[in-house]
């Protein structure tokens, strides 16, 4: 799944390590999610959304939706 995690992180000037600490996951986890190589579980996605204060759909994109937006 595509996502805007890197952008949202940059807006807040957080490193991957910062974000990882806030989510209580490993930095490798954050990196794998950002690069789209690992899809987080639903609970983790909710946690991420809660951290950034926005709906999950504003952070993660189903591939069909991502293509439609282009």
């Amino acid at each position, binding site marked *: 799944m595509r996502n805007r995690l890197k952008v949202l992180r940059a807006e807040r000037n957080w490193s991957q390590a910062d974000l990882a600490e806030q989510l*209580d*996951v*490993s930095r*490798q*986890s954050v*990196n*794998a*999610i950002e*690069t789209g*190589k*690992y899809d*987080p*579980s639903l609970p*983790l996605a909710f946690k991420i959304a809660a951290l950034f204060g926005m709906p999950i759909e504003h952070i993660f994109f189903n591939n069909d939706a991502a293509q439609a937006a282009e």
Partner: protein
Amino acid sequence: MAEVRGTARSRYLKRFTLSMIAYAGLLIASVLALEYIEGSELANGPWRFALAVAPSLPLLATIWAMGAYLVDEADEFKRSIVVQSMLWGLGLTLSFTSVWGFLEEFAQVSRFPLYLTFPVFCLCMGVAQFFIWRRYK
């Protein structure tokens, strides 16, 4: 992957190290003890089996520690990597022992020492883990 604090991974490494030390120690002790009782009345009793099996117990403890790690590890991504590595390790090990088994049975190839199955699994799992980590880099 190098950060090892009071984590599930550090607990696992501790248990693994202790098990390996126990394994080496029991292996030596057991071999010596078996030699010692060779020829005596003890050699044919339950001691023979108990001494022979003793070194396998730390290996069982290691397998348990692997399972305990998966329960302990709170990070889902790390869990996923280890689970994938274990499955690959299992698949490769099962393939290896199956092929060798048929060779033993029908081509009279020399016997594969069964007690080496676990080390083979660890090796296969380790190799798989290396490639899986690399895929996520």
